[in-house]
């Protein structure tokens, strides 16, 4: 037995607060992956990811797009016959991969998430235009044009804000988040 804790244990620790049952109770029935609306787009189905975690296949899990493709619809979670909270697992893998700075190349998810979080830390509220650069560069030209088209139309319909919204007690708000995580980690 080595001193370093196994990948399987690390993920279990990340899920300690989750209401679900531990991953080692998975019976590999495939209900999650049969249910998942995004499964056909994933490198591995959620069921396979659980098996891989239980096998300690850290590199392959982190390199997969599976958890970035989870849309948090919770359909797998309500159907799982073993009460495993698969959606929470996907969240945990996203966090883990961002912390470790290790994820599949060319994914929008990680960049987008970080941009989104920074935006809220700055203003307390979400402001769609700030998000644009983070994904426009990652998509192709066609998507860029489509996105701009969509955005222009939204603007014309009065559905896109021009100025970033801010909450009033922003200083308190920032200090509050500072008590949870050092600001430097986000800015």
């Amino acid at each position: 037995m080595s001193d370093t804790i196994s990948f399987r244990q690390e993920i279990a620790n990340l899920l300690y607060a989750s209401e679900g049952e531990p991953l080692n109770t998975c019976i590999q029935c495939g209900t999650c992956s049969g249910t998942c609306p995004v499964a056909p787009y994933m490198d591995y189905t959620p069921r396979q990811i659980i098996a891989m975690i239980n096998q300690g296949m850290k590199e392959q899990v982190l390199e997969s797009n599976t958890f970035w493709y989870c849309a948090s619809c919770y359909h797998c979670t309500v159907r799982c016959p073993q009460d495993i909270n698969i959606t929470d697992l996907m969240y945990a893998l996203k966090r883990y991969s961002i912390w470790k700075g290790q994820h599949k190349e060319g994914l929008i998810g990680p960049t987008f998430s970080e941009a989104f979080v920074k935006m809220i830390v700055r203003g307390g509220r979400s402001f769609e235009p700030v998000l644009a650069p983070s994904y426009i560069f990652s998509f192709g030209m066609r998507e860029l044009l489509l996105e701009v088209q969509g955005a222009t139309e939204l603007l014309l319909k009065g559905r896109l804000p021009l100025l970033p919204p801010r909450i009033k007690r922003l200083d308190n708000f920032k200090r509050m988040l500072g008590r949870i995580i050092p600001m430097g980690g986000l800015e």
Partner: protein
Amino acid sequence: MEKKERIGVYVCHCGTNIAGVVNVGEVSTWAAENLKEQGVVIARDYKFMCSSLGQELIQKDIKEHGLTRVVVAACSPHLHEQTFRNACKGAGLNPYLSELVSIREQSSWVHTDKVAATEKSKALIAGGVARVIHHEPLEPLRVPIHPATLVVGGGIAGIQAALEIANAGYPVYLVEREPSIGGHMAQFDKTFPTLDCSACILTPKMVEAGNHPNITLLTYSEVEKVDGYVGNFVVTIRKRARSVNEELCTGCGICWEKCPKKVVDNIFEAGMGTRKAIYVPFPQAVPKYPVIDRENCTYYIKGTCKACEKFCPTNAIDFAQEDQLLNVEVGNIILATGYELFDARRITQYGYGRLANVFTSLEFERLSNAAGPTGGNIVLRDGKTVPKVVGIVHCVGSRDKNYNEYCSAICCMQSLKFAHLVHERTGAEVYNFYIDIRTPAKGYEEFYHRLLEEGTHFIRGKVAEISDAVRLPGEEGKLIIQVEDTLTGNQLRVPVDMVILSAGLEPRRDAKEVANKFGISCSADGWLIERHPKLDPVATVTEGIYIAGCVQGPKDIPASVAQGAAAAARILGKIQQKEIALEPVRASINQDQCSGCRICNNLCPFNAILFHEDRMVSEVNPALCQGCGTCVAACPAGAISGTGFSNEQILSQIEGLLLLNIPKKETVA
């Protein structure tokens, strides 16, 4: 203490079960040294106290050391109390002068800290030693056994049990809630893995039970109340009004032919067919007499009709018939009340009840049964279209914490049987969707192989959902089964014409009530609990009450039959002894101390305490007393004592457990 008892203490290793955690050597040395004051003259530890060598060790010591009391520290008294009592008896010591202390279930198996477990074991033994001093020599109570047996439930398990006992020459009351015996087996078409015709093998047994001179068949009846105790139960049975005079009826069938009222049969036909308001559930029904379903009979609803009465050639129809309450005396009882099918509607995403061509397993049994509503033609809900592709879903409501966590044991084989029947009768493509294929009995795995050879598709994956939402070409008009093929990791959409849900087995909805009525208990799942899961599967913790068949847990026909026969054999053994020895744990009242306050009179749930008005004292009837001890605890005059659980015994045990009056000597670890 006038006369000091000579006590032997025996600490069992139980292999490593105890010795792996508790330092048994230290415990026995400690007992020998520190419990001398209490009268311990010898203490030993041994690998397996319950083995014949272990028992001989005790017997030898009783003789050689003149032991007057024996304390064994081993497993739970529910397992081996009798063993060690017998050992004492064999050596001439009254069996009730022994005490079994549980240091396995209560120490080594539940604690990991070896030191703490060892210390606790010492305290438990000290408690046992302190208690055993106050044990008294007792003789078991002997009561006669009534030779009759009550069997509740007329399915295959109950029928088997009833026949075994009746054929041995003893009377049986067979009580069945439905109008006919036969149970679920009567609904099936074929039985796995041999594909015997279910009715062909069941009907002869039903007829035999119906005609047997030793069997009193009470169908359309339910047990209302159970009084008494092993050997001497008094059971009240409600025989519901059939509205048909059984003495006049010949079972000719004219009445149900002429009855104008059709009713959907949700019981026997699983909603797939109809019956009349006066009916027998199926042609081979035993007994042959019909019943009138008063909720649906036009006469009972509107006051007119009486078609059955007009046509009955023997004037057997009796609209005024009333329920009868019968009291029967029996010595033993077998509960064989069976199971209920899991309600597949609860899994909304499988569409049962919403999508027409999703069937339950029981519906399919009726569909494939030659005597069923379609004459055995496997067709869609429209009654004519033969399916080209059929999907069979395993584990419906089983192995799923959202419904039932247990495996229903029969669904794999049942699904394979369905796959075979569909293939054989329609030539359709058949898909089985399974999590694991479980075929652990004689000839079962071979049947699975037969199905593989027949070309049935097996897809390993629990079905996620069944819908009629068409997305891809080829899906129009089909039911789409969405599932992950877990062996390839592909999400599949399998279009089929018919889905069969292999629904799991559940305890009867009133299982809890039944358990209470008979004084036994249900597991958390709702199945009735056997006395020991491995070594005593048909007895219960209540003497004289046995269980057989699916009431104890999901099982197939061979296992149900075996349990029915096993329960019968147990009872026959008891009946032949003519009397039974009961634990002499009884309350008794010291008449000199009784103040006649009558507090105890109302406390006894068995009405075992009589009050003598003339002498103003109460008295316990030992035949009725069950030994709970509530009256003992409540008597303000301390006049009631409880054999085996006297105040001295318990108070001393408390002292012992707290290691009072025990010298604190240094022990060698």
